[in-house]
């Protein structure tokens, strides 16, 4: 091999290494664009582009949170159902699922809810159990699908998208999710939604982002309420669960005037809440933790539910 050839090959290898290194850093750290800043960039690529709401829950950190441990100790859960689910599917919710991404229907009627879960799944066991219970296996675009038996109700489908990644939903929804990833026409193409995801995704272990106008339209609100609501385009809700719960509700109005109207309405509701809560200091503390903020088209309401307040829940449940 001549020296010239060695130089050429070293140059090629350098380009390859630099590119792979950049991609690897972007994959693990995020950055470069809003989408990759989201820790679930890969999962979002399975969410169809017309989804109205995306939600995320870091199941692992919520399960391990102090709050959950306290609640578990105070209110022993019904472990039997969980064990039965594990025996049926081989999935231990406590340990096997790391996080889930859920997407709710868009405007098309055939679109349903979709859940994409990341974790450790025994594909062989899942397939064997499904077959035993009358499930049907199918291959779609190179992915294995398991259809639940059609008992007259809604038929559910589970798809093995990648190693450690499954999708659950109706057959049409799951197939649309696979198509979205294959065609690169997923929700990641929606830059407004991805900007919101990138903003709230890094600081919370549960969040939801969606188009408020689409949801309000589907919710079929009474005309009197719908006509008085200021036009809001996007909403985002994020929460961090550990000892207590802290979170933010955020709305993006269509224009500055609508946002101002919404701020005034929320401000009025908070004032009314403070007046009502004067008799109960604990509820008063909760109301006081609500902070209204935002400028321009943005309205944000942050809150904190302290661990002490949450510790009262088991006692209240027992009383009832």
């Amino acid at each position, binding site marked *: 091999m001549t020296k010239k050839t060695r130089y050429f090959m070293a140059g090629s*290898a350098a380009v390859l290494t630099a590119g792979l290194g950049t991609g690897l850093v972007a994959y693990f750290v995020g950055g*470069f664009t809003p989408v990759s800043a989201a820790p679930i960039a890969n999962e979002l690529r399975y969410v169809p582009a017309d989804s109205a709401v995306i939600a995320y829950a870091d199941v692992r950190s919520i399960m391990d949170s102090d709050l959950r441990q306290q609640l578990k100790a105070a209110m022993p859960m019904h472990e039997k159902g969980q064990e039965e689910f594990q025996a049926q599917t081989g999935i231990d919710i406590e340990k096997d699922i790391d996080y889930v991404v859920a997407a709710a229907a868009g405007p098309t009627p055939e679109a349903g809810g979709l859940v994409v879960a990341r974790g450790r799944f025994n594909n062989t066991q899942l397939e064997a159990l499904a077959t035993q219970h009358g499930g049907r296996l199918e291959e779609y675009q*190179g992915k294995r699908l398991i259809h639940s038996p059609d008992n007259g109700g809604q038929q559910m489908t589970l798809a093995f998208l990648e190693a450690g990644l499954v999708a659950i939903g109706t057959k049409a929804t799951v197939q649309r999710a696979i198509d979205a990833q294959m065609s*690169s026409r997923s929700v*990641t193409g929606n830059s407004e939604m991805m900007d919101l995801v990138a903003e709230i995704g890094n600081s919370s272990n549960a969040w939801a982002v969606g188009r408020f106008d689409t949801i309000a339209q589907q919710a079929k609100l009474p005309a009197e309420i719908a006509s008085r609501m200021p036009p809001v385009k996007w909403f985002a809700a994020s929460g961090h669960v550990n000892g207590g719960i802290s979170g933010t509700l955020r709305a993006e109005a269509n224009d500055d005037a609508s946002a101002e109207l919404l701020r005034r309405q929320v401000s009025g509701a908070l004032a009314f809440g403070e007046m009502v809560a004067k008799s109960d200091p604990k509820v008063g503390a909760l109301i006081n933790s609500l902070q209204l903020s935002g400028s321009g088209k943005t309205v944000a309401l942050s809150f904190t539910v302290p661990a002490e307040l949450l510790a009262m829940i088991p006692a209240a449940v027992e009383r009832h």
Partner: protein
Amino acid sequence: MNHPTPARPLPPAPSFVASSLRIMDLSISEMLWSRRTVFMLLIVSAPVLIALFVRLLVGLGAPLFEETRNGVTTVRMTGPAIFGMMIWIFYLRFTVPVLGVFYGTSLIADEVEDKTITYLFTRPIAKGAVLVGKYLAYLVCTVFVVLPSVMLVYLLIVPMQGSLGGSFLDLLKDLSLLALGLAVYGAVFAFIGAKFKRPLLIGLIFIFGWEQAALAFPGYLKYYTVAYYLQALVPHAMPNDSTLSMIQGIFRQTPGMATSLLGLFVIWAIFLSVAAWVVERREYVLEQ
């Protein structure tokens, strides 16, 4: 009394693998700096130049990826989707099979044409090792030219309305399947080059005639193509950019990953072994 000096024992002939590697080492430079490489550089630099041009236009503010209707800006196309289309159109359907034909068919044919095959065949090495060594040289040359080109396109195109990190797994799949494609097509055309006269014509008919036709018809004919198994591994949607690709899309079957990998491995192993066997047995008559 003079005793005759005992003859020095001949060193043992190198093994098949050692011979192949030696031939590879000898052939790489010859292959890389040939006129054929200019053609290869032209082919692989086209998508890079297009990516650069698109990037420049977007940088100058051309609304290539977005459209605004009634004051609402929506994303019409994303960088990852364009990258996927480029992988299909430039690399998978054209660059990989064409490089396979041009290099694969010439592995032995060039030596015959240049009348230098005698020098290789008179060495104490298996004739099959000559072909395998030259095949390895082809693989190194093409992989080191094609994959950096893909990498540059990825870095230029994907960040536009997309994410480098989000598309990283697809990039790894793309690089692997292109390397796999070069290996398998190279093996098929190495056999054609070793066995037939006018191998280039047969190779071009195979990739632009047989493969395209077989994929466009329903039935089992597509099982006898490389593209059927290779295209099943592509992580991007197949673009419907022509009538033929639309028809192929209609009758497209996607075998599972295991089936595809097994299919490609079987094709590669059979054709490379048979090519080496043909070279071992064939008498190449050099024209005077």
